[in-house]
């Protein structure tokens, strides 16, 4: 529990909020961000699904390296990388400990590494694609490939509103702590404190639900003033809205480059396995 508190000191809510905004809007000038959303979706279709069916270590390692490069190119915030690593490590680590304790031994490490590699390839592909586009572009791209407008609106809205929602939640949480009495003793394994914090975490939602309801009404009224429902049914409005999207040489280079790399990897993998 000590390390949790230390971690919490470093990861402040303010920091999380800034990171989120940074993820959403901070990297509009990277190479990946300038690509057409459809290119990225096409790319993701391969790198998000194919790794499940790949069993060759060489191939996986090659893809892993490529994705490390693309993830670095998209300049993702450390917070997201941190969450990714934590998730992968805790899952793999737990499985490894369990299998080792019950007679797994050395030979279970390889399949576990392979599994972790697969999972990380897929996660990094989704980070590359979804974090390198800014929300407007992502939602327009989804709209273009035929996703319902509510979904694409939801994404744009979510990215924009989440930081302020996190802040509001944090304020309510802090005022609950300010007005309440923290347990005097931590209890065995800090259970008293854990129960106290979980209770506040749940209770804080009551004011939040009411204030978000108000906010939602304002949002929808503003949307209606701009003719959201009308545009929803009108194909002409959609066409005009999305007319700016077009494939460029950049997209071709990116797709061809990735394709060539994957083909080379396949050749390499075939040679090594023979």
């Amino acid at each position, binding site marked *: 529990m000590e390390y*949790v508190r230390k971690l919490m000191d470093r990861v402040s809510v303010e920091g999380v909020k800034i990171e*989120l905004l940074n*993820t959403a809007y901070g990297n509009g000038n990277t190479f990946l961000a300038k690509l057409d959303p459809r290119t990225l979706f096409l790319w993701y279709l391969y790198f*998000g*699904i194919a790794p*499940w*069916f790949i*069993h060759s270590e060489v191939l996986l390692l090659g893809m892993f390296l490529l994705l490390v490069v693309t993830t670095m190119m998209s300049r*993702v915030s450390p917070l997201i990388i941190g*969450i*990714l690593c934590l*998730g992968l490590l805790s899952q793999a680590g*737990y*499985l490894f400990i*369990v*299998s080792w304790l*019950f*007679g*797994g031994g050395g030979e279970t490490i390889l*399949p576990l590494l392979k*599994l972790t590699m697969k999972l990380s390839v*897929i*996660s*990094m592909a*989704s*980070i590359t694609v*979804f*974090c390198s586009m800014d929300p407007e572009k992502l939602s327009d791209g989804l709209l273009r490939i035929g996703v319902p407008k*509510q979904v694409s609106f*939801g*994404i744009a*809205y*979510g*990215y924009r*509103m*989440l930081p302020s*929602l*996190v802040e509001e*939640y944090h304020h309510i949480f802090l005022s609950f702590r300010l007005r309440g009495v923290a347990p005097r003793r931590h209890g065995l394994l800090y259970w008293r404190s854990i129960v106290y914090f*979980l*209770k506040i*975490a*749940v*209770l804080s*939602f*009551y004011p939040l*639900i*009411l204030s*978000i*309801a*108000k906010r*939602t*009404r304002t*949002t*929808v*009224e503003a*949307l*209606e003033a701009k003719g*959201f*429902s009308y545009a929803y049914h009108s194909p002409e409005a959609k066409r005009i809205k999305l007319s700016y999207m077009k494939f460029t040489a950049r997209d071709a280079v990116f797709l061809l480059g990735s394709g060539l790399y994957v083909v080379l990897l396949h050749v390499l993998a075939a040679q090594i396995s023979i």
Partner: protein
Amino acid sequence: MAQLKQRYVLTQSQKMMVFILSMSLYGLSNMITELIPSIRLGPIELSVEYFAFIPLTLCILFHPFYAAVGAALGEVIFGEIMLGQFGGLGELEKFIGFSLAMFIAGTLVNDPRNRRQVGVAAMMGVIIHQFISCAVDIGKVWIGVEEFEAVPGLAQSVVVVEGVAFLNDVLFSGILFALLPTLYLVPRLYGKIEPLLGMKPRNNKMKYSLGEIMAPRLIVVSVILAVLAALAEFLAESDMALVEWDADFLESIGSWFIWVSIGAAAAVACLTIWLLVRRGKRSGTAGTGI
């Protein structure tokens, strides 16, 4: 008399409001639960799986369909895409299962002031959701991985392991983060939150017709999607022998451990029910806090 059969109709923008409200609230809570660490005591995992009370409360107070779909979408957007954990097609199964469970929970209640109905609906929502995900997990092993059948007794132990996980989730997460908060929030928000969205509170005289929402096309599409999602899951995880270790683990530790876990969960459940009943008797109509 015509008024008695009045349907629960919402305008386009009211639907949108319910949808956005549910999406942003549940998305936010997902972000928070994603950051809370979980405690693992052997097969019992004491973790805050999800704040199920938020979609449950909203499904009970508003139109269940829009609230459920909004919450499921919020989970995908805030909890998966924004944190870079989007798992591709496998998410589809989660999306459908979750929104279905929440929708059913919402339709079970026709009077949000009735405490018993709300409690039953909250538990049903969690049970249905966990049951669907459990069934998919078991199916994954049963259908997806043929060579497992060569191992004697493996199928049974998978069912046992999944069953224990199911009971743990329902009794721990379900009671602490679905039943109690929903019982606390619904009576407090009823009649207070609806005017903020410019609509009348749902009352038991209003009926919303399933036929109107569940148009035949939607049913066909969702069935196809569900089958596709299940197939994708099976394909995707056929070589992730995650359950194998769990099974080994269970066998080596002995089956008595399951009973410890079930017993603990049952004790918590009994204690909660007893406390609820006692509190209810003492304070009559006053609220049941947590």
